[in-house]
Structure formats: structure tokens, C-alpha cells
């Protein structure tokens, strides 16, 4: 059903006037220039349930600085003290660990709306590196502001908690991936997950999404060598499950790719069983 004309549901933001009414002017000057930048973050958290109006506003008005960075930039390094939490607004970023022998394991891939390292609010020294995989736009929120919000606003605390639990569910799936799935299944599963998350975050269709990762990076995700990744991609292409066109991944046969990866999307959904 459509809403009444003139009331757009696409813009659930507080008006600037509302901001002006409730906050000290100095704050507003700092915030108005980027007042909607955290909208993808809010949209993600509201997937777990609608937040009260004042909570939504408090979230959107969190102090933050915006950074537009090129591919391959470290936002955070393992062992260095972090004072901010990073939210991805556009592009892809990943967390990874590096071993003394130089080999790298990518631990997670993040996209629009993901709060990547909310843990910095409580654990100030990260055990991983945070790197952009593409040109990206990120918002850096002071860790103290997140910590404060978790204490002051139970509805947001609940949403952030669900978010972190779902991150843990993805992590479990990745553990199964590198531990028990074969090369083809690992990659097919990863590609299905990425597509599903891309669609869930409202950016487009799950069977056609930007895929900036190199073979080496896919290898670092799945614990395979680049040469092996190439061979698996070729076999998936040969079976007409997918195609790659100019850094875009096109899934030609979603059920086929999901079957090849043993992929079921329920772990990505907090309301399990809804698909």
C-alpha cells in the first residue's frame, strides 16, 4: 500500500529543524554538513526492529568524521590503539590477520552499513588489521561515544548486540568454510553470502553485484592459493553457475550456486526461518 502523497518513506531522517531544536548550536554546525552520513548504519540496525524516534536521532547525530579512502588503505592496524569505531558507508573493507611467514587470512568482508569494529568501544587494541578492498567511504565514530550510547540507550544496545551476534554467526560459517568445505564449495558459499548481504543492505540484486576482490584476496578469504581460486572460478563458469564481467559478479544460476556452496541464508537473518 502506498502512503499518502507528499510523505516520502524513503527519507526517515529527522529534519534539520528538529536537530536545531534539541542540540547546542556548536554541535549542529559540526553535524549538519554530514548529518545523514550515518543513515546506512541506522538502516542496518533497524533491520533488527524499529528504534524509538529519539534513539534514531541520537544515532544519526553521533559525532563522527568522514573519510573517503582509496583501495588498499589501512584504517586500523593490529596492536595499535584504536579510539574510533568504523562504519562502512560505501565500498568494501576487510579485516585480516597476517602470519610471520607472510601469509594472510581475511577474517571478514564488510560493506555499506556495517559497523566493522564496534568492539573498539570496549577492547581498545584490535587483534586484526582493517583494510579497504575498494575505494571506500567510512565514518569514524569515537569509541567513547559508542560505549556511552550502549549504556544510555537500551534499544540501540539491543540492536548492536544482535548485529555483533550475527557477525559471530558469519564467523562461524567461515570457520566451517575453511575447516570442512572443499575449494569449490568454499568459494561458492562465499559468493552466495556476499550476494545475499549485498541485497540485504539494499544496494541491488544478489545475483549481480560488484566484485572487486582479486584471486589472491579470494584465496585469503578461503585459505586457498590464487592459482587454485582461478581453477575453481573457471569450473564454476564452465558449469554456467556464474560469470565475471568487469569486476562484477553475475550469478547465472542462483539455486545451482547455492547448492554448490551448501549455502542457506538463515544464518544471515536474525529472525531465523524467514528466509
Amino acid at each position: 500500500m502506498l502512503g499518502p502523497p507528499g510523505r516520502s518513506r524513503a527519507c526517515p531522517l529527522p529534519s534539520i529543524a528538529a536537530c536545531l531544536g534539541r542540540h547546542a548550536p556548536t554541535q549542529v554546525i559540526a553535524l549538519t554538513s554530514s548529518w545523514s552520513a550515518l543513515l546506512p548504519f541506522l538502516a542496518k540496525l533497524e533491520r533488527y526492529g524499529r528504534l524509538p524516534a529519539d534513539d534514531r536521532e541520537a544515532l544519526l547525530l553521533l559525532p563522527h568524521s568522514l573519510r573517503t579512502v582509496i583501495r588498499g588503505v589501512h584504517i586500523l592496524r593490529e596492536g595499535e590503539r584504536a579510539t574510533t569505531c568504523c562504519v562502512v558507508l560505501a565500498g568494501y573493507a576487510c579485516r585480516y590477520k597476517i602470519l610471520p611467514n607472510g601469509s594472510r587470512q581475511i577474517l571478514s568482508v564488510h560493506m555499506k552499513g556495517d559497523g566493522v569494529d564496534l568492539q573498539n568501544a570496549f577492547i581498545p587494541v584490535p587483534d586484526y588489521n582493517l583494510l579497504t578492498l575498494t575505494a571506500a567511504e567510512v565514518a569514524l565514530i569515537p569509541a567513547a561515544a559508542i560505549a556511552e550510547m550502549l549504556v544510555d540507550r537500551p534499544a540501540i544496545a539491543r540492536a548492536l548486540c544482535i548485529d555483533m551476534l550475527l557477525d559471530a554467526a558469519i564467523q562461524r560459517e567461515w570457520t566451517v568454510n575453511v575447516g570442512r568445505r572443499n575449494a569449490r564449495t568454499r568459494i561458492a558459499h562465499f559468493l552466495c553470502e556476499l550476494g545475499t548481504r549485498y541485497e540485504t543492505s539494499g544496494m541491488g540484486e544478489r545475483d549481480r553485484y560488484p566484485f572487486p576482490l582479486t584471486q589472491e584476496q579470494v584465496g585469503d578469504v578461503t585459505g586457498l592459493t590464487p592459482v587454485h581460486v582461478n581453477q575453481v572460478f573457471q569450473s564454476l563458469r564452465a558449469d554456467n553457475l556464474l560469470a565475471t564481467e568487469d569486476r562484477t559478479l553475475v550469478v547465472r544460476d542462483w539455486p545451482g550456486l547455492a547448492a554448490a556452496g551448501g549455502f542457506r541464508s538463515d544464518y544471515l537473518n536474525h529472525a531465523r526461518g524467514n528466509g
Partner: protein
Amino acid sequence: MPLFRFHIRRGLEFVFDPDGLHCADFGAAKREAIRGARSIFSEQVHEGKLWLDESIEVHDEADELVWTVTFATAVEIVRTPPLSRGQPMIYAA
């Protein structure tokens, strides 16, 4: 660092490497090829079917074939001599 491409050949089937990899030098490229061959090979072992003649062809930036490694030569195959009669069987751990 120069770019190398690692194409895979299995009989008439040829898998082109669209990305390539930057390696420090030719030696590093060779090691990468061997690593890739062993990685695919190990999966074939899991599945119980080995393609000994499958090979990785290393091409340089000018697309010249600079090196080839067949799977059979990417690993060392060691076979112990058969036991002679009366010799006690020793099971190594």
C-alpha cells in the same frame, strides 16, 4: 614487482589467469606456481583422482611462457622398496 600469470592446462582444457600476481622475481613466481599446483593437487588427493599431467604455465608480463610445472613434478613421490621375505614389518608412526 613484475606481473606473472599462472594459466592452468589439463589436456585440451586451458584455464586463463585474468588477474595475474605480482611476484618479487622469477624465483618467487616459480614458488607461487608450485604452491598452486600442490594446492589443487591436494584437493585431487582428497577426491581420489589425480591428474598428473595437469600443469601450471607461468607467463611473464609480455605474455611469454617462461616456465611450466606439471603436477607430477610439483611433488616428490617416494616409494619404499618392497619388503623381502622374512623381514619384520615395522610400522612407522
